């Protein structure tokens, strides 16, 4: 497994853990407090420990760069679709005669970031498997 592939797998695992923890906390503490589960995403900063030292001198070549760019396109495309859907969902939920709570905006931000990470890293893993 190349370094970028290991990094993508790590990102999928951490993001999935955050999402599962968030969904598991909702029935216990409610939607707004359950957002604290996204603090798990802080472990993404430990990525250099996951990539680690490699015996190979080369960590990132042209094929890795091509996969990285394709995965960015896929992840960004899905992010925009989900972001637009989230905006519409917020409008239909709150209508135009009520105030949108700040925590709702924060939740949208967390969910769209999580969606981007999952789609981008997942696309990367899929493209590596296909090649």
């Amino acid at each position, binding site marked *: 497994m*190349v370094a970028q592939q290991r990094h993508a797998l790590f990102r999928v695992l951490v993001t999935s853990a955050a999402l599962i923890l968030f969904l598991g906390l909702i029935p216990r503490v409610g939607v707004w407090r359950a957002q604290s589960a996204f603090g798990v995403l802080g472990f993404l900063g430990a990525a250099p420990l996951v990539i680690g030292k490699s015996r*190979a*001198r*080369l960590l990132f070549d*042209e*094929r890795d760069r091509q996969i990285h760019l394709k995965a960015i396109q896929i992840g960004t495309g899905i992010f925009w679709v989900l972001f637009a859907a989230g905006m519409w969902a917020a409008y239909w939920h709150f209508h135009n005669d009520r105030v949108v709570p700040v925590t709702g905006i924060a939740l949208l931000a967390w969910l769209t970031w999580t969606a981007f990470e999952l789609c981008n890293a997942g696309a990367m893993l899929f493209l590596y498997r296909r*090649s």
Partner: protein
Amino acid sequence: MPEPVLNNQIRRLRFERAEMTQQALAEAVGVTRQTIISIESGKYAPSLPLAIRIARVFGRAVEEVFSYDA
């Protein structure tokens, strides 16, 4: 209409050169071993500079190493 295919003779040329390993070829042209594997199996089309570097390792022209069937 069938999709064009990029074929290569890298595996055969490696064996002809004292059974050069994929790792040795990868280090010679500056890519990872996984990229060489993908190129040999036809799942990844190398860039032009990489294709030229690979051909130079074997002392052949690019057209002798890679062929494009449209």
